[in-house]
């Protein structure tokens, strides 16, 4: 990759971006393009690009670049674009503190402890994986229990393998990708076990990573125990009832030396909490306006720190929006306030952004709670007057729904709240 570290750190920046993955790099470039003079991206790793760098499989970029790229290729493109656009990318650096007055303290491998201030900030810290402990799998605590992303890093960046025979809990995309990756490396994948009655990753990943390799997917099944004193020796799995409670009478043992856990991502919002941003209890990310501005003026957010995306392409779109408005804010142009709150209702887990303006065009991202076929996405007033409807062929929780909203659609709407529902037709 490119050695991009700036050798001079300024005392003042127009925009500081926390995180150098696709969200942060995209936002930084957009901020520059919106007129911000000095834009600094701070990233913890020695190379910018974020988790994409360990995602050596293809399937990225179809929407954003119109061609299929690997993760590192996608990262390379957004990094080069940011650098060409005049963004400073400081890697091997860690944001220690972002004060309410936007005084920034950081620790850098090159510069040591440094303090600077910024007019605007963009939070793009990404997400972390839920762990075995977070879902409280009982049993022993041997070596050999990895989150799928850590296993991916060990295999793809360090060139080692997590074990000889692997069970995977959770059918999230990283787990599916790792099932294929490990199979290709000669590791036996004993099966993928999913608590929910449906796969939790993209359909294309279920097909390309499991079906094509004859890896069994056990739905409505979970791991209820881990055995092995020093190293995993077996896991116990059991089907679950309609309330997702395990049925131990029907449990069986799966011999394996490794358990990969792929049970979802959690937005990495420690900095957001430090800034006392308003958080959405469902997304666990900040509440944002249609300009991707958080509850604190001049603090913007984008990417997985706001909500977990299935595709990096949509992260890039969101990043452009956040960076653009951060750049404008730094130039003293505060985005016009939104006038409509979006309220997730029937079968909608959440909507991002949380508010919109009837005067601008928006893309609203939402995630459903349950799968439905032949359904309709409906916007209505809180007292039930339908404002807009769009037919959908199917919805599933792992696939985000994008709703393009043009001002014309809301021309006759004058309220301050809209319910968002996805209903059977």
């Amino acid at each position: 990759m490119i050695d991009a570290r700036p050798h001079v750190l300024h005392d003042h920046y127009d925009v500081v971006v926390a995180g150098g993955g696709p969200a942060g790099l995209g936002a930084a470039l957009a901020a520059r393009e919106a007129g911000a003079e000095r834009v600094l991206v701070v990233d913890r790793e020695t190379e910018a690009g974020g988790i994409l760098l360990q995602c050596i499989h293809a399937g990225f970029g179809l929407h954003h670049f119109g061609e299929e790229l690997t993760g590192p290729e996608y990262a390379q493109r957004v990094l080069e674009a940011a650098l060409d656009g005049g963004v400073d990318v400081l890697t091997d650096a860690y944001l220690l503190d972002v004060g309410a007055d936007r005084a920034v303290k950081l620790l850098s491998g090159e510069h040591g402890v440094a303090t600077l201030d910024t007019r605007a900030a963009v939070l793009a810290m990404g997400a972390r994986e839920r762990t075995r402990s977070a879902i409280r799998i009982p049993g022993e605590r041997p070596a050999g229990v990895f989150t799928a992303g850590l296993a991916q890093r060990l295999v793809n960046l360090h060139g080692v393998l997590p074990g000889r025979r692997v069970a995977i809990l959770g059918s999230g995309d990283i787990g599916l990708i790792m099932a294929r990756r490990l199979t290709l490396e000669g590791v036996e994948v004993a099966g993928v076990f999913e608590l929910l009655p449906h796969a939790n990753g993209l359909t294309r990943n279920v097909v390309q990573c499991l079906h094509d390799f004859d890896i069994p997917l056990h739905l409505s099944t979970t791991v209820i125990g881990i055995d092995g004193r020093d190293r995993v020796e077996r896991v116990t799995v059991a089907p679950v009832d309609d309330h997702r409670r395990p049925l131990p009478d029907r449990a069986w043992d799966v011999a394996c030396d490794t358990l990969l856990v792929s049970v979802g991502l959690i937005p990495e919002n420690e900095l957001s909490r430090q800034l006392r941003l308003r958080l959405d209890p469902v997304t666990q990310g900040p509440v944002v306006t249609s300009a991707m501005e958080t509850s604190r003026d001049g603090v913007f957010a984008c990417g997985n720190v706001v909500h977990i995306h299935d595709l990096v392409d949509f992260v890039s779109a969101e990043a452009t929006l956040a960076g653009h408005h951060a750049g404008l804010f730094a130039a003293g142009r505060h985005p016009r306030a939104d006038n409509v709150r979006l309220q997730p209702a029937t079968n909608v887990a959440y909507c991002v952004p949380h508010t919109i303006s009837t005067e601008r065009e928006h893309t609203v991202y939402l995630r459903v709670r349950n799968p439905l076929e032949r359904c309709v996405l409906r916007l209505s007033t809180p007292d039930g007057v339908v404002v807009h409807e769009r037919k959908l062929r199917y919805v599933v929780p792992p696939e985000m729904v994008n709703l393009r909203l043009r001002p014309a659609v809301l021309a006759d709407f004058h309220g301050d709240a809209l319910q968002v529902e996805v209903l059977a037709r």
Partner: protein
Amino acid sequence: MTAAGHDVAIIGGGVVGCALAHELTRHRIDVTLLERATEVGFGTSKANSGIIHGGHHASPTTLKGRLEWIGNQRWGDLCDELGFGFARVGELTVALSEADLPTLDHLVEQAEAKGVPGVERWDRDRVLAAEPNLTTDVVAAVHGPTTAVINPYEACFGLAEQAVHQGLVLRTDCPVLGLARNGDTWVIRTPAGPVHARYVLNAAGVFADAVATMAGVGDFTIRPRKGEEYLLDKRLAGLVHRVIYPCPTPTTKGTLVIPTYDGTIMIGPTADLVDDPDDVTTSADGADRVLAAARRLVPGISDRDVIAQFAGVRAVLDSEDFLIGPTAAPGFVNVAGIQSPGLTAAPAIAELVVDLLRAQGLELAPAAGPAPPLPRPVHFASLPTEDQRALAERDPRYRRIVCRCEFVTEGEVLDAIDRGARTLDGLKFRTRTGMGRCQGGFCTSRCMELLAHDQGAPLSAVTKRGGGSWLVLERDEVQGPGPDTGGAP
């Protein structure tokens, strides 16, 4: 070592064995410690609640009751000498009904009888003013100011490190396979060959009965009693300021809500008899019970807050008291049945055993002078900005963060490796890498690299906690043909 071997061999490197080693090496004698695990403190001690009990919980009529209060008074100085964290946070034993009030009275009386200062009854308003997140069901509480929190594994590392500086021969990965007398010397059989010593201290914890049996004096049985603990996310720091105890039952102090030295909240432990002294499994049922009991004290605790779980096994005798003393086998001394308040009492146990050995005829002349204190490990995150700046300026190793959740620098990791960390867990217990909310998701591979580099070995040589706890394999170690993808599109 003299020609005849060591003066004293300690079997077991938990907090008791480490305290014995530390106390004995203050004298001019030759001491060895045999620990079956790869590092000290890796057995029951690492799963201890980390509370230095106030001194008033156990009855003065018991040995553990007498040693509890003496031990409590030793820890402050030990922590100064050994450079690990210690905070006298105090405690509240909480009554949730009128029926609990006699228990509170009993605790106050016991404190008076034992001379534990400052233990007093607080009324409901005072309790809730001091701990606003406690349940409003609280009727009254007893406040004890002498209770403290430490990290039990840090205590083990510190005690052992200082003892090694003072001449301790530390043998890890060294399980005891057999014991025999040869003249007036014990011969301890280990996988690494025989170890000779005049005196043997049996501090083998849950295996003390088995070790006593090897010495021919197996006249007691250890009943393993498991305790599960659950660690909560750091954002709950400050939820409680003192250790919160429910009113105790005859066998357990109950499920506590503990503000650990590191600022996280820990809840537990359970108290369940188990058959296997190595049974450190956690259970769905245990989690439910701990959460329910903790919520009775602090209703704001949620199961979503749990970031880690673990269990340890207490070594319990039918007497429910410590068993410390010589046996029918000459020179073989039991230091057994050290259940709660064993961590608290450990320094007092060590002093008692030194007196016992002296009475047995072991000459114990004090060492030339007091050992110089161990340097306190750097804890970058808690330094003031100016000190961080100066340290990062001086030493670039402190400019790089390895563990983002607990904010641990590479310098701290390398320091820990220099001071004896050999495994991923050893690193975790010394520096908190991987102990935070991501549970090592981000830092594990870097920690493995640093350990492997130090050991001049590949990543696949690094273990979680020694023995068979390997973490990864080299590609060529994974046998078997690749998949048949001929039919795939």
